């Protein structure tokens, strides 16, 4: 991961842009995608500079980027006021001029320009913004999530949580490796169906691999072997992404 720390002042925007150029060049993004990342990061940094810190005592912004699972991941950390995106209503972009509010556009643009935007906060580590951009031509990339134990009503929720976390970070292709799953209930099946539906709606895919014989039996008894893409091995599944 590449990192850089800059003071949270407007004069740093040019340095931030330079740092992000390094990221988009390394990721091999085309001009258009690179501009989208630049604008999203510019908006994020401007928000921190203008609203996060007290202007009289500006703090620092810690920037980072890495390439992971076919996407560029950009992070911005600050130790200013806690930012809660739910407190910023999205602009009504269809309202007429007289009623049009000028605020909230930065956050709105970030969500439109990037594939994933996530805000985390804790007292010790401050605000952490994680934004992801898929790298074109990397559609075969997939997140592999290993599940284990009993996939019943309770434990499936935890599994779904991990999938949702990956989706929030921009993952669209997800492979669930079930080699360590020993039991599958009907509520587990139902939860996986919902995950599959959600991914399809986002243009992604869900695949399963390494099912133990009695887990596979649950799928075949209920007819779900026709619904889910089930593969004998991880390699086999990973090759199948992007070749629907």
């Amino acid at each position, binding site marked *: 991961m590449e990192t850089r720390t800059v003071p949270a002042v*407007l*004069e740093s*925007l*040019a340095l931030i842009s330079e740092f992000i150029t390094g990221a988009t060049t390394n990721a091999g993004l085309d001009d258009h995608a690179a*501009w989208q990342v630049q*604008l999203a990061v*510019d*908006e994020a940094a*401007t928000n921190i*500079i*203008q609203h996060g810190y007290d202007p009289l005592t500006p703090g620092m912004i810690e920037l980072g980027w890495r390439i992971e699972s076919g996407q560029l991941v950009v992070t911005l950390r600050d130790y200013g006021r806690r930012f809660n995106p739910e407190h910023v209503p999205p*602009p009504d*972009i*269809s309202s*007429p*001029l*007289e009623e*049009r509010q*000028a*605020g909230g*556009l*930065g956050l*709105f*643009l970030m969500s*439109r*320009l990037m594939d994933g935007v996530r805000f985390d906060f804790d007292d010790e580590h401050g605000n952490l913004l994680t934004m992801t951009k898929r790298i074109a031509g990397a559609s075969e990339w997939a997140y592999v999530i290993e599940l284990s134990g009993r996939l019943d009503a309770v434990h499936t929720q935890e599994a779904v949580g991990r999938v949702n976390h990956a989706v929030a970070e921009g993952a669209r292709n997800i492979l669930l490796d079930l080699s360590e799953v020993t039991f599958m209930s009907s509520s587990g099946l139902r939860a996986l169906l919902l995950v599959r539906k959600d991914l399809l709606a986002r243009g992604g895919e869900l695949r399963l691999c390494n099912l133990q014989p009695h887990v596979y039996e649950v799928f075949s008894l209920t007819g779900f072997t026709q619904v889910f893409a089930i593969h004998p091995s991880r390699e086999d599944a990973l090759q199948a992404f992007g070749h629907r």
Partner: protein
Amino acid sequence: MEITHKRLNRVDLLSVGGRLDAMSAPQFKAKIDELFDQGRYRVVLDLAGLEYVASPGLRVLIEARKRARDWKITDLEGGDVRIANLPPRIKEVFDLTGFTSLFEIYSDTTEAVGSF
């Protein structure tokens, strides 16, 4: 950001080039306020040379158009901020944010100036 100003008979033409971001937005706003303070509320913004726009620049645009339109000679005639020449990247931001329908946008400055 570079701004050049041309005073025409009834209209003021501002050509804005370079980057319109948080850093340059205050300078842009000051230039527009200067016109308004002189009672010049008919403004055409030529954005042909604009390479980059971020939300602080959009904010100045929206507030400027609101102020200009508050100035009226008659019910039919008054102030406005109109736009000429929208480069593709800037148009993309306008489309994303719904600005395309918030402004009168013309394909060249002659047409924009003549619209007043």
